[in-house]
């Protein structure tokens, strides 16, 4: 318990240092407009990282996620822009395709025992090639110039101020209710609980945070739809990993696959399911990232798998499986998104960006190993 708290605290300090440094270099970082954009970027990074969490928990990995993001976005864009398919149908077709392909990769990994690392490394190259073939190396917009459709709105729609207030109130109430209920339940079961003051403090900080997000985004255009989608995905993944048999199986397989097998855990089906979910999330991220760029180009999605892995590891997910939480991943994604946004604002050259991303990934894994050894 103590160790976990140290970890949370050090992550918070790291975030404050990063923000302070960027704001000192480029004060525009803290402008409502940039923070709103940051929240959309966070949503894209975090959703993919949550998918990566589902894959990492049973000890697997998906290196093809970034290429998949590009491909799914490209398929939907080509359907909409060149083939005049209605946006909702196009998104659905691309999403179903992704789920099928990822379930297939999962089957090869779980049944044929191809290491996930190699399988998805192959996927990375194959999907990148398919992506470029799909768009014929051109720029394919997600909507006719000046118009809107469901696809483009994913990252350009903002909730009206009033709806934002209603949503924020609902979120705070839900947080209070679920925290108090969980606390009561833990208490009745004789588990360790935080004392009342700390619980109040946590709730107070959370409510303040929600309010702050609301005020900042409302002073630009309103709460971005992307942030709402992130909230929904995070809630779903949290419920899935903590309160369903499937989620328990993910942790059990990552913790000790042989014991899980003997305990009657359907190891293969669970791993295939994890990859199928990853396919769904890759498609969603693909649509959002492509919409955020306005068009499918050959660079959309590039290296996003590494940002997702880094976000997971920074957030306390073990690369060996069996450990990781949704809240931690959200925090890790915030750090990654802030770094990327800040580097763009500071006009850091692409060369240096690559070096920085690589160092952050290596550093995060190294710290994770150090902490695992300590426990």
């Amino acid at each position, binding site marked *: 318990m103590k160790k976990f708290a140290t970890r949370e605290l050090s992550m918070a300090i790291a975030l404050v240092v990063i923000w302070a440094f960027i704001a000192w270099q480029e004060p525009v970082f803290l402008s409502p407009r940039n923070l709103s954009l940051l929240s959309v970027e966070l949503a894209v990074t975090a959703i993919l990282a949550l998918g990566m969490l589902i894959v990492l928990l049973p000890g697997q990995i998906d290196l093809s996620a970034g290429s998949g993001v590009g491909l799914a976005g490209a398929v939907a864009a080509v359907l909409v822009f060149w083939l005049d398919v209605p946006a909702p149908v196009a998104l659905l077709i691309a999403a179903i395709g992704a789920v099928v392909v990822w379930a297939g990769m999962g089957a090869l990994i779980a049944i044929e025992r191809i290491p996930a690392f190699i399988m998805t490394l192959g996927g990375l190259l194959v999907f990148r090639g398919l992506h470029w073939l799909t768009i014929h190396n051109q720029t394919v917009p997600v909507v006719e110039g000046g118009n809107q459709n469901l696809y483009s709105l994913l990252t350009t729609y903002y909730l009206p101020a009033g709806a934002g207030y209603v949503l924020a109130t609902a979120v705070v109430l839900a947080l209070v209710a679920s925290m108090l209920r969980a606390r009561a339940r833990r208490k009745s079961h004789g588990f360790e609980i935080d004392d009342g003051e700390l619980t109040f403090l946590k709730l107070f900080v959370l409510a303040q945070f929600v309010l702050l997000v609301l005020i900042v985004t409302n002073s630009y255009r309103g709460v971005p739809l992307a942030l709402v989608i992130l909230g929904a995905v995070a809630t779903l993944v949290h419920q899935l990993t903590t309160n*369903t048999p499937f989620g328990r199986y993910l*942790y*059990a397989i990552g913790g*000790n696959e042989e*014991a899980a097998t*003997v305990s*009657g855990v*359907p190891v293969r089906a669970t791993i295939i399911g994890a990859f199928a979910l990853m396919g769904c999330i890759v498609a969603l991220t693909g649509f959002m990232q492509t919409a955020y760029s306005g068009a499918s180009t050959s660079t959309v999605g590039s290296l996003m798998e590494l940002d997702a892995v880094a976000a997971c590891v920074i957030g306390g997910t073990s690369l060996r499986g069996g450990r990781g939480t949704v809240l931690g991943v959200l925090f890790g994604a915030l750090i990654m998104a802030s770094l990327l946004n800040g580097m763009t604002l500071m006009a850091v050259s692409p060369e240096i960006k690559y070096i920085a991303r690589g160092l952050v990934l290596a550093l995060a894994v190294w710290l994770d190993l150090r902490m695992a050894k300590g426990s």
Partner: protein
Amino acid sequence: MSGDVVLSARDIVKRFGGVTALDGVSFELRAGEVHALCGENGAGKSTLIKLLAGVHVHGSYEGEVRIGDQVACFHSTRDAERAGIAIIHQEIALFPEMSVGENLFLGALPRRHGLIDWNQVYARAATTLAECGIGLDPATRVADLGVGQQQLVEIARAIARKPRVLVLDEPTAALAQHEVNALLELIRELRLRGTACIYISHKLDEVFAIADRITVLRDGAAQGTLDAHATSVDEVIRLMVGRRIEDFFPRRQPTRGKTLLAVRGLGVAATKESPPLLRDIGFEARAGEVLGIGGLMGSGRTELLLHLIGLWGTRTSGSVELDGSPLDSHGPREALRDGLVLVSEDRKRFGLVLPQGVAFNVSLSSLAKLCRGPFIDGDAEIAQTKATVSDLRIKVHTLDQPVATLSGGNQQKVVLGKVLMTLPKVLLLDEPTRGIDVGAKLEVYELINRLTGSGKAIVLVSSELGELIGMSDRIVMLCEGRIGGVFARAEATQERLLAAAMGRLNQAA
């Protein structure tokens, strides 16, 4: 034949935590003799060997080991090698993709100008192989050799270092009879040249064919050293088993119900291509009954259980029925659904998700039953886990305490709790009391009584003969993958069980 003493161990005491593995063992080895070490599983043979091999380093035990007239202070296995002790382990440890010659001299390959001198490697390998009477081309890839030939290469590798003491730990476990003969011939040859050998084997006919003296270990203590030419197999078995004060086994009279598990004519091979390791196995376990299964290491006990839940092997013959309906090996999930569960001897590997909590582990096999809609009913899960924890008297601080922090006995109870929550009909318990303290052992025995009392059938695999006799209503002894003997509780004695496990039932009876 009996030359100078080359190695002696005096009053060796070795403890692992609270368990005493060696309790004042003394032992001496003379030049040019073959000295056999005999004892049941867990008698302390391996511990003694590891001490001589430098695995248990100097200072981690009491007493002293002398090489010649000097006290041996081994701080690593290399020190032991330098002192002239070569050990051949039960498992073959060669590099399969390398040639016989490379394997023989690996770590000490002859060099010229910093590069490996291959001509010399193969020339010296050929000499060594010829000395050992092994007719192999040193350029052959080890993977292309049979298991028996590989074992001979392993021995040649040990001999290439010209050891003063050669230790052979169950060297014939994987060998066919003609290969065994070749090996024994080789050992006789070495003896003539003055090498001292320690020979460990469960196979007493081999021991009597080769050994000059025999030291029997039991419960970590030496029971005496016998002249092989002046003793008998029966005498050795009597010493191995001993007349110890029986542990307290609270087995109650069984009420036998219907047959829950029936195994008939079962043959199982590791893979489709290999010959069957288990042959013609047949037994029944009835409701309310404990069926004991014993056998020496490598007799196929664990493989049999793993096959029953569908984790190991391909069935080549026979059938398995669970409560009247055929059970084909699909996997543990199907076996569990049908009411057959396994508690493995290796609970950390096959039993527990160590970093997770008690509740997580206990409920893992029953999550489908604990669901309300798509979600796990947290209250029901905790209530059932609590009931299990108090029922089995598992000592925990909280239900989310990681099981890695529990003692061995409590970990074992967590595994038992997990399988019991699935409401099984038949429990396969593989060494359920290994590595747990006496108090927890008694609780496990009590639990076995309660479970059979409530109409479950239990298959108890144990290498402790006392435990088998104390807790089983009937006992099947396996011997090299076959049934060596079946005993009702009343007619089982440790001598007879051990004789059956060694395939010598008729001689000892």
